[in-house]
Each structure stands twice: as structure tokens, then as C-alpha cells.
């Protein structure tokens, strides 16, 4: 009961601020929280990244194995994306097999990477129809303070860019950097009444989970979209979201790109 009341108070507060044209943490409506990216943090993984989006934290690790290609794509590598919403990351996550939320998270991140063709899968063919590289992208949530989706997307592409294909260990040639040719970025917004709140934090989501995720590629094409949450969205609102999301993605992409290049990834340099 007390928890319910707390939730009610929180929701009322968030709504009153929104109606006053403000967000509770003082951000502009189209402003992301601070994005911090660190790559190469898991030496045992082929690639890895820790992303902080405000207080939200996600680690993505990339592992690679040699396996058989799918029959209908005999000359292409395989991507398998998995998300674990471990109970460490939120009081609402429970141990157990993936629920619909972690499945949706994994699949939307996967689509951004897959549809932007960020990974050059043909270069991951070892022997046509017989042996290809399987890329496991494992999303591991650490702290869910809202918008795990975008934190995971950024962590996933960053980890891929950090990945070295361990060909030597598998006895199939020399190690090489995973061939990456695009940089998809997802932008998730909360739709509240007539307002769009980009990168909602968890307290903001106490008003409802009316989310829209739009992922775009380097050239500003849309590569994945997902309406998530039980709500109805006005058509015009969607068009507004569309333009906004592609614009914000560009901004975040530059920010992340800078960090990936930057000297702050000491551990990354050696690889």
C-alpha cells in the first residue's frame, strides 16, 4: 500500500512538472542524459563495452564461436543477441528465464544492428555452407534507471566495434577486427500527453510506459522502430518523433564516436 501511494505521488509530481514544461531532472525534453562509454572492459570477451546513461548501466560482451551457417544464407556469419535482465539491476526484475521485456529488448537491439547491416556478415564466412562465425551479443543490465533500450543499443554497437575475431584460437587464420560498416543508434522517447520526453529516466516512467524506439543508421535512414507500451499514439506525434529521433541519433552517434576514438579507454588501446 505505501508503495502504491509513493508511486501515485511520484506520478503526480512528474506530470505536474511536465505540464509546467519541465522535466524533473531539469533536462530539456529532447535532451539525453550524459552518455559514457568504456570499451574493452572484459578482457576475456572478444569485445565489450560498459555504457552509462545517467545512472542506467549496461555491459555488453561479445563472444564468438565457429558454427554452421543457416541453410538459406550459407556464406554469411550469424548474429545471436540475448539480454539478461538480472535481478541485480532492478527491484522489479526476477530471476528466471527471459520474460517478454528482456526478449523485446534483445530483439529491438538486434534489429538495429541486423537491419543497418552494421556487421559485414559475408566477411564472417569461413567455409561456405560449412563454417561461419557466430557472433554472440550478450546484453547484461547492471542498473536500470530507465531507458535500458538505448543504453543497450549503444553498448552493443560499441562492443562490436571493440571486437577482435579470435581466428587464431580457433585455428582458422589470423585474428582480425570485426568488420563494422554502419553505426546504428536507437532513440527511445516517452510519450506523455502531448509531450515527447527523449531518453526517459525511471522516475519519469512512473507516468506510464508509453515508449517509442526509432533506430537510424549513419545516413539517417530508419532501420528499426518499436512502439512499446499499452497506449495509442496520434499520427502527427509519430511524425514528430520520427524527425526528432533521427536528429538525436546523429548527435548521440557523434558523441559516442568521439568517446570510442578518445584516449579515455586505456584498456582499449592494447587491442
Amino acid at each position, binding site marked *: 500500500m505505501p508503495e502504491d501511494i509513493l508511486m501515485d505521488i511520484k506520478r503526480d509530481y512528474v506530470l505536474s512538472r511536465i505540464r509546467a514544461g519541465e522535466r524533473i531532472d531539469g533536462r530539456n525534453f529532447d535532451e539525453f542524459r550524459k552518455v559514457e562509454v568504456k570499451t574493452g572492459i572484459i578482457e576475456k570477451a572478444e569485445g565489450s563495452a560498459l555504457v552509462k546513461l545517467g545512472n542506467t548501466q549496461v555491459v555488453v560482451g561479445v563472444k564468438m564461436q565457429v558454427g554452421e551457417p543457416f541453410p538459406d*544464407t550459407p556464406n554469411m556469419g550469424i548474429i545471436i543477441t540475448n539480454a539478461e535482465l538480472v535481478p541485480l539491476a532492478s527491484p522489479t526484475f526476477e530471476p528466471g528465464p527471459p520474460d517478454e521485456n528482456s526478449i523485446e529488448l534483445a530483439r529491438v537491439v538486434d534489429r538495429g544492428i*541486423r*537491419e543497418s547491416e552494421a556487421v559485414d556478415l559475408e566477411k564472417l564466412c569461413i567455409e561456405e555452407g560449412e563454417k561461419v562465425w557466430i557472433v554472440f551479443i550478450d546484453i547484461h543490465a547492471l542498473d536500470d534507471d530507465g531507458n535500458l533500450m538505448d543504453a543497450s543499443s549503444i553498448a552493443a554497437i560499441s562492443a562490436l566495434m571493440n571486437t577482435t575475431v579470435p581466428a587464431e584460437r580457433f585455428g582458422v587464420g589470423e585474428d582480425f577486427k570485426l568488420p563494422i560498416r554502419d553505426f546504428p543508434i536507437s532513440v527511445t522517447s516517452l510519450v506523455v500527453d502531448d509531450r515527447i520526453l527523449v531518453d526517459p529516466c525511471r522516475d519519469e516512467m512512473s507516468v506510464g510506459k508509453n515508449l517509442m524506439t526509432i533506430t537510424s543508421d549513419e545516413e539517417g535512414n*530508419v532501420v528499426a522502430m*518499436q512502439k512499446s507500451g*499499452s497506449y495509442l499514439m496520434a499520427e502527427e506525434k509519430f511524425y514528430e518523433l520520427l524527425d526528432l529521433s533521427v536528429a538525436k541519433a546523429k548527435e548521440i552517434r557523434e558523441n559516442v564516436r568521439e568517446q570510442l576514438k578518445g584516449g579515455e579507454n586505456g584498456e582499449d588501446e592494447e587491442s
Partner: protein
Amino acid sequence: MEKPKLIVDGKRLDGRGFEELRPIKIEVGVLKRADGSCYLEMGKNKIIAAVYGPREVHPRHLQDPSKAVIRYRYNMAPFSVEERKKPGPDRRSVEISKVSREALEPVIMKELFPRSGIDVFVEVLQADAGTRTACLNAASVALIDAGVMMKGIVTAVAVAKVDGQIVLDPMKEEDFYGEADMPVAFLIRNDQIESIALLQMDGRMTVEEVKKGIELAKKGAMEIYRMQREAVMKKYVKEEE
């Protein structure tokens, strides 16, 4: 498996124009046990939907004292696809069930049925691209057949980008080889499209193409909406006879 040409002489592989739906067949009230039901064909898709409820929810701690709890289960029969599908939910069907439920939840007047449950079960007997939209269309009709109060009808259709063209209601080859696929569902009330209830997309489209796709989807949805209404009407007319 090389990509075939999907558009030849301005026509699609099955002879349709860009803005043309596949043939649709809708039958209402096809099951005895369910409170509402619908059989729907859309191209080679064969869908059957059943609605149970409002009914009691067990165990009790799953009840919501302020409104009905909606469940939506999208399921493919093992024989519905080329390669036999292992029975039971997979990741894809879990995601589809989630976004489909979320499309119906704001439309169903849940507050009228506190503590109760409304279950929507949809079986794909044969799949041929666009199953999630076909299922939603069948589910909407089954909900009406069950007498569940709603703010309008949910009508869904996919659009795709195929050989550079935005086309309505892609069939399997277009889905597989096309550049993008975008399933959309609308809330339609009084013959008017009111809002978007479901929206997903994967592939690659410019922002302009997405907008064009939505416009095309609206056009397609209105056509389907009319068929949904007609099917419902036909049943009730028949019953009064």
C-alpha cells in the same frame, strides 16, 4: 538463393498493384466453446482467433481490482510453415504477443470489468507474411463477437519497401527479399482512423518513405475495416433471420 526481381512491369509477383491488398475472407463465430471467434484468411494466411471472457482470473493474486487483465497469445501451429515449427512459444511469438496485447489494451474498456480476465488466443494455421497483422484483425472481430466493449476497432496491415517501391500488404517473397517491412495497427472509430495502436519496422527506409508507408497503411486499413464490419454484420443479420 538469389533475390528475384519483385516488381516486373509495374506489377508485383502475384499480379497485384502497389496499393492492393491480398484477398481477404472473414468469418465470425466459427467456434462453439469460445465466447467470440473469427476465422480470417489474408492471402495464404489462415488465422483463427478466440476470445474468452470477461471471466474469473486464477490464481487470485493475478487479478487487478481496478480493471480487466488482458492476455494475448499468438501461436503458430507446427505445420503452419515450410519447416515444421517446434510447438510452444519462441522469442518471436513472445514479442508479437506483447506488442499485439499492447495494441488492444488501450482500446478495450477494461475498467468495466474489474478483477476479471479477457483472453485473446490466436492460432496461425498457415503463415504467409503479415501474420501478426492478420491475427490482430481476427482478434478484433472475435472481441466484437464476444461482446467486449471497445473504443473502436483495431485494424492492422503491413507495408513494405520492395525494389524501391512502397507497397501494401507484402506477401512472403516481398517480406523475405524486400528492403523493409512495417506492420501498423490503427484504432478506427466511426469510419475514422484515430490513432496508431501498433507500430514496428525493420529494414531500411528514409523518413519520407516511412511517412508514405503510414499513409498507404491507412488506406489499406480502411479497406480491411470495412470487411471486418461487414463480416460482423453478416453474422448478426443471419442470427436475426
